[in-house]
């Protein structure tokens, strides 16, 4: 299983990654080998095997609908590079 340059570029765009030509080559190879492994798994007979949605056999882990006080706004915003009027300030994209 190989993966084309275009596919690498598409996935990189979706992940907002800027790749150099050399990196594209490298990742095409990496991703190709991962997909090869998945291909191998596909050969297994999984007749009657339930799909695995979660790694642990646990279900219905709930929290009560109760409000707890939120941390101070300054703490939440402490790591933001830019803050204005109690809000994160980011470049506009629309």
């Amino acid at each position, binding site marked *: 299983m190989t993966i084309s340059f275009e596919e690498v570029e*598409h996935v990189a765009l*979706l992940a*907002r990654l800027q790749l150099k030509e050399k990196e594209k080559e490298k990742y095409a190879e990496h991703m190709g080998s991962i997909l090869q492994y998945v291909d191998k798994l596909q050969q297994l007979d999984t007749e009657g095997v339930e799909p695995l*949605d*979660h*790694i*642990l056999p*646990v*279900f*219905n*882990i*709930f*929290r*009560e*609908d*109760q*409000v*707890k006080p*939120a*941390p101070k*706004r300054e703490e*939440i*915003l402490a790591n933001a590079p*830019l803050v*204005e*009027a*109690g*809000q*994160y*300030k*980011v*470049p*506009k*994209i*629309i």
Partner: protein
Amino acid sequence: MSFETVIGLEVHVELKTRSKIFCSCSNEFGAEPNTNVCPICSGFPGMLPVLNQQVVEYAIKAGLALNCEIADYCKFDRKNYFYPDLPKAYQISQYDLPVCKKGYLDIEFGGTKKRIGITRAHLEEDAGKLVHQGSISSTPFSLVDLNRSGVPLLEIVSEPDLRSSQEARAYMEKIRSVLLFAGVSDCKMEEGSLRCDANVSVRPSGQATLGTRTEIKNLNSFKAMEKAIDFEVQRQIEAIEDGEEIIQETRTWEEDKQITRSMRSKEEAHDYRYFPEPDLPPLRISRKWVNDIIQSMPEMPEQARERIMDEHGLSAYDASLLTLTPDFLGFFDECTRYYHDGKIISNWMMGEMSKLLNQKNLDITQCKINPVHLVDMLKLMDEGRISGKMAKEVFEAMFETGSPPEAIIKEKGMEQISDEDTLEKIILEVIAKNPRVVEDYRNGKKKATGFLVGQVMQATRGQANPALVNQILARKLNS
């Protein structure tokens, strides 16, 4: 060439839990920016979501109200995309195993009933809000308020069964109505707790395959939804007639310009790369859980409609308007506890009350009139102490002040004169003053009484009981 419009709606409803879906932050609307925010809903690395049980409870309730099948097994998935209002760069949603599916709602439009299919309803978290200072086009920045991030949402996806903007509106109104009755959301479009995206396409009449659709976002009111769909339908028809191809894309409704505008090009078409959310274990919804909720379901609008038609002999039209919201119906029900004639209550609610509420742009929860006061006013009319005309004035004063009708009548000195002796005296004076009119009457000009009644009303500044005046006058003239 004639075209057929095909519409499917994606309706988002915020569930009215106390806390958010995956953390304990408050789910209140309108707080100061970023004051209901914690490391979980602001997407700090390493934080773990834990599902709010009440959210699932409400989703099941909503599903039942929407006539859906409730899944016995469902799970959450990550929907990956980049946007500044989504701090984790993924939204926790449900992809292939939603909590509700295969439902329907019956709508009535133009006197005909129509069943609209509901494909699915799934749970997800709401995103934050982008705020722009000044005009959105001039500022290079967005401010991000994450109070809404993590608010529980139910997304209800319809089948492409709607054929006009009016049908779409009727469907939206029906969703609002059943969810209000189910008590799972306050469904306020103006606060964004009820929102919708519309998928719109057109095709030549008779064609079986669907045309290419566009998705319209930013529909923040029923009116905006209708206008945007009408605009988009017209735009697509004109494009096709000009030989252009419709591009599958997302468009936004621009309220100020009253147009839809393309938001994203096809090249950037969404590829969300869903995968199962590893931080949340799947759900097993037992039959017992669902049955317990079925037992606790409140009356739904259609049941309420049948009930009040049955109990009070209301028309289907009146009954369906009275059952649009549980608050409106609650007012009616409260009145009927103290007054025998539901039809009269309905007339006042649908007439004067709705008129005044619309004028002031209020909903019934903000109405100052107490149901008991409305009933008192109706009783005063029955007793002949106020006329229908006076009642309207009393009603308006009740609406303004919230005072009981007795107090208003006293204050305005507007009590109706129903005392026979008093009226007789006035009538005899009027007769004495108008001998020629009386003669006309006795010579067969029966219409002459109208003038005499008018004189009596004038003499009493409109306060004479008109039925009594007619009675006494007839007696005196014929004697």
